[in-house]
């Protein structure tokens, strides 16, 4: 469950960063995607953050859920900003898929 929340927060932050011109340039080295595309990334990012929030509240209640959510976002954001963007940009897109899927698998198995 913890991995799923972390995975969702991570994917959300990846989507939100894709919605920024600067990171499009970082990743693809060419001009940014269309405005409509960027808008889509932004919606996806906020949607995933909301999903992570809902999951936390469902699992841990209204008192502890938001604390989990904020903590998971902090760790996901640190991984993205300090680890992947400067040192392993190629891993970002695959990890944005792998982490939530692995989290889902772990949550359904355990």
């Amino acid at each position, binding site marked *: 469950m913890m991995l799923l929340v972390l995975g969702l927060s991570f994917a959300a932050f990846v989507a939100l*960063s894709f919605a920024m011109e600067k990171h499009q340039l970082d990743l693809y080295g060419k001009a940014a995607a269309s405005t409509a595309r960027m808008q889509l990334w932004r919606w996806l990012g906020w949607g995933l953050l909301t999903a992570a929030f809902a999951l936390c509240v469902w699992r841990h209640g209204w008192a502890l859920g938001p604390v989990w959510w904020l903590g998971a976002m902090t760790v996901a954001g640190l991984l993205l900003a300090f680890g992947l963007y400067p040192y392993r940009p190629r891993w970002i897109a695959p990890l944005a898929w792998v982490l939530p899927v692995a989290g889902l698998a772990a949550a359904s198995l355990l």
Partner: protein
Amino acid sequence: MKNGFRQSMAWLHTWTGLLVGWLLLLIFMAGTASYYREEISRWMRPELPRSTVSADQAAANALAFLQHKAPQAESWNVSLPDTRNPAMRTFWRNPESMVKPPAEGEKRRRRGGGRFGDATLDANTGQEVSARETRGGDFFYRLHFDLHYIPVIWARYIVGFCAMFMLVAIISGVITHKKIFKDFFTFRPQKGLRSWLDFHNVSAVMALPYHAMITYTGIVTLMLLYLPWGVKVAYPNDEDAFFSEAFARMAEVEGPAQGRAAPLPIQQLLDSARMHWNGAEVAGFVMHRPGAANAVIDIQQRDGKRLTIDTPSLRYDAVTGELLDTSPGAGAATRTRGVMYGLHLARFADWGLRALFFISGLIGCLMVASGVVLWAVKERPKHAKSGRTGLGLRLVDALNIGAVAGLPIAFAAYFWGNRLLPLQMAERPAAEANVFFWAWGAALLAAFIWPKRMMWAWQLYLGAALFALIPLLNASTTNAHLGASIAAGDWVLASFDLCMIAFGAMLAYCGWRMQHWQPPLSAAEKKRRQQAAAEASA
């Protein structure tokens, strides 16, 4: 004051942050370690056996011990073992008649003076265990608001002052940070000042909810010390009345013991409490007037499901099992305080959430550390131009090395002290604390004598070695080493050793980066080199 709102906020941020930065780092590091206070205490007393019996059996064992050891006591207090710390702690309060008068020439009797007794028990057998004397993780917990060697009240005022400055620095920092959203994910390494600024920004922004929460709630925990006047006006003669009213405690048990009667089995009493709470576990209990016909028992709930620090308790007649009292519902203000206090201490957190809190705390340490380093990095070019390092920069450099690289040495040294000081030494807990401050003092002194880049590397390497060798030290001085703890599935002890190796590795990496640091090339120099390379290949 400088012109412009943002500039004045930047000025405020720089100076509030720098002034208290080094002490804040100590507070943040000790506070972060306190998330694992119980685990640290456990590691520092490796003699304690793990508990393998149920809470009911442990409680019965404790009562049997107390019945034998302190039958005359006015009350017995028992905290039951849990998964984080297996020690079962008991203490008891003797009647006034048993207390020795103060010794000749002393105004007050020595602490306790026979009034209180305490013992740590093996939960499995109910026998007193003799473990080495140590304050364990409680040392870090106390250090982060009581400091050390100075009166507690002064310390709390100093810490409160630092926390206020931290709050000002957080708010002014957010205002100063022009591109808080644009640079949300931006960290550009190998770019000198730019990198330090990015690092400081990202570490602050990513954990901003945590930083703001921990600073604000930290001030709230001590608010009645900082702002006592409201209570003084409303309760001019009796502050205790305020505390019991405001914090919704049950009334004190008063009156002498009457008659003798056998209490109900403890299991039955604990089960009624669990039923009352819909299955919530028991943390411990206080038996008042044990053995008497009017004995009562206060049972306290374990933390875990709620944010607030105020855990409910129930009072039963220990002989008939009748429910006598429940902790009263608190008012809105008290509940707010309870939640803030609870958030600060995070006792509700299970292992996963605790890890998230710990990581956020570490990021807080790195944010403070990068902030004070940033000041020096920014200042250095001005001094380089004039050819000599000014006094202010030299002072900041020394304090930076002594705090950022020196404090990890002190933390590791404290653990070394726990394993190496003679077990039968007098005042052993105080000696362990002295080891911490001797190590820190030595690091600070060395930093003041020679505040250069190689001093950074040396101190970071020393800290790395001290941390990474702790598992070896543990193996050579105790039987609770990694080989034994992993084999026994004792993950509290094993994780402690593994974390020490991880901290050692991180410090070693930082030391290596410091040692091999090259000043970033100026744009002109880069261009010149590129041209030279192009000419060479042509």
